[in-house]
């Protein structure tokens, strides 16, 4: 009989081999990746920072005690949470904290008036302004701005938030957190200045939704059609916008071009919607005009939502239009991965991974690229090439994730 040490060594190797042969790690990795990114995107869309899922460490009490207490606690917490998430938010008006009622007119006759909502959001109506809260639900509220300006700060505390503002024919959907909105009914002009996050403006004379992102200030008027933004030196103030009928359009920074809502949707984690918006805006045109990082984002969205052909189109466009950029190399890596995983096109995958390594030999994905190149070459039947890659990989990453395969390859 072998010594216990030898037996255990043999056993360890056998278990590793059997596990490698028994599971499909690629499938497991892809499944987990999609689910993870969906959760992260949902979290980002809700504006939550790391820490939201923080869990306690080890259980402080034994299981049998914890089972009973935990069950009671869970039932109570679940009930409280269920009630909390369904309760419509309430609001108070002014410094006195008068309970607000839906539909009541709120006017700021000399001083600004604050509307404070129970979940933490605040809407401050500028002097001379007039507004109503039309509806309130658990996820947010709908506010009608009849005249003047509001400074808005939305808090994303609940699982989903849904806030919107109406101003004349315009509809403003809140996807961000802080912005200033003003509406002048005389010249039918809407001004919007976003400080954090973004908002989507639609309705009125706008043919489609426009995203207004952090740092941008825009103004539209529906008196003449189509609305033509023009520049001004300063952002509009509540007083100026309310008191200056005929003031045409103010533009401090370039607003999102029509059809660019896809970019905003992707950045806020709405991958499927973003991809659909890009399709509506003519996917080919988007590929010809978007920046390199946006093309990578678009390709990611297409890949994660299963539209491989669109992902390839965006990545190829990126490589053609920005041939020497780091993003072009990253695109080559993504193209290689899709060729390998989605189409089992191993020779093509070899070309893309090789391209990445040629363009970014010390890039952040270098280890993965060599490891995947090794696998792609092996599956393409290039045994000698795969062995060379295996040696190259082990030299640089002796404990890396592809190291066991590389050692096996070299030992065969």
């Amino acid at each position, binding site marked *: 009989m*072998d010594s*216990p040490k030898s*037996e*255990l060594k*043999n*056993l*360890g*190797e*056998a*278990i*590793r*081999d*059997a*596990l490698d*042969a*028994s*599971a499909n*790690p690629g499938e*497991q*990795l892809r*499944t*987990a*990746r999609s*689910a*993870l*990114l969906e*959760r*992260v995107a949902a979290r*980002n869309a809700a504006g939550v*920072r*790391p*820490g*939201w*899922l*923080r*869990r306690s460490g080890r259980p402080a009490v034994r*299981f049998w005690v914890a*089972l009973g207490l935990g069950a009671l606690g869970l039932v109570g917490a679940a009930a409280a949470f269920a009630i909390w998430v369904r309760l419509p938010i309430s609001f108070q008006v002014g410094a006195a904290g008068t309970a607000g009622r839906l539909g009541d007119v709120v006017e700021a006759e000399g001083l600004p008036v604050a509307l404070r909502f129970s979940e933490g959001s605040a809407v401050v109506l500028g002097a001379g302004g007039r507004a109503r809260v039309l509806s309130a639900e658990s996820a947010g509220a709908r506010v009608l701005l009849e005249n003047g300006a509001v400074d808005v700060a939305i808090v994303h505390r609940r699982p989903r938030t849904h806030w919107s503002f109406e101003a004349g024919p315009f509809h403003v959907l809140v996807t961000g957190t802080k912005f200033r909105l003003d509406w002048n009914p005389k010249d039918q002009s809407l001004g919007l200045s976003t400080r954090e996050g973004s908002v989507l403006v639609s309705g009125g004379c706008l043919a489609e939704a426009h995203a207004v*992102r*952090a*740092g941008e200030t825009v103004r539209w008027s529906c008196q003449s059609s189509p609305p033509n933004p023009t520049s001004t030196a300063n952002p509009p103030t509540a007083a100026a916008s309310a008191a200056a009928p005929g003031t045409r359009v103010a533009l401090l920074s370039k607003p999102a071009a029509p059809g660019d809502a896809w970019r*905003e949707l*992707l*950045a806020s*984690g709405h991958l499927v919607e973003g991809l659909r918006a890009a399709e509506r805006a003519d996917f080919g045109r988007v590929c010809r005009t978007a920046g390199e*990082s*946006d093309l*990578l*984002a678009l390709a*990611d969205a297409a890949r994660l939502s299963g539209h491989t052909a669109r992902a390839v189109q965006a990545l190829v466009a990126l490589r053609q239009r920005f041939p020497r950029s*780091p*993003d072009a190399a*990253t695109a080559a890596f993504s193209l290689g991965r899709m060729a390998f995983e989605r189409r089992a096109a191993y020779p093509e995958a070899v070309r893309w991974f090789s391209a990445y390594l040629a363009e970014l030999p010390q890039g*952040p*994905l270098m280890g*993965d690229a060599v490891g995947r190149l090794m696998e792609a070459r092996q599956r393409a039947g290039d045994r000698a090439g795969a062995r060379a890659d295996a040696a190259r990989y082990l030299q640089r990453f002796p404990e890396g*994730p592809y190291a066991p395969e590389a050692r*096996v390859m070299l*030992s*065969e």
Partner: protein
Amino acid sequence: MVTPLTFVGGDDALVAALRAGHPGAAAVFYDRHAAHVQRTLQSVLGVDADLPDLLQEVFIRAIDRIEELEEMDRVRSWLTTIAIFAARAHIRRRARRKWLFLFSPEQTRPRQQEPPSSEARIALRETYRLLDRLPVNDRLAFVMRIVHGLTLPDGAAACGTSLATFKRRLSRAEKQFLAAAREQPELQQWLEGGTRWTRQNQS
């Protein structure tokens, strides 16, 4: 300004991007380390249909606790520790589920995917059946050292315990596992003969 979904940068920049909630950083973080975490989980649990869920859970926890990561060059071992804690919780959950649904055969049946080879399948199933009999902490020490191949100090660090405690658990697990494995005909070849690769080379 639009934050691109795809992130490009080294590990330090990646961790900073995760802390800042960069939407593309999670994908890159996952792509760099998922294979390692998957192997760790699989070593502890064997072939388990819940593995993708656990894999995702490990990364959610990691992203959630990214502020706690102090040494950037220890990302991988930090992830190993999180994976071990997740696997331990899963083993305990499984044990509780078994107890809670004692009279439901459907629930007590192990949720394992079927490996392709019958020989390997039987031996692997037998191995993890024996591992299921070990106390969970002893099992973790055994798996990290014997299956995952960690050194003693790395194994102790991964399990969040002292070196002495790790050695004690490992020694206990080795004795108990070997005694049981020697009684199993299905494991004789594994104990004596090494792997399919060495067998192929020998033949």
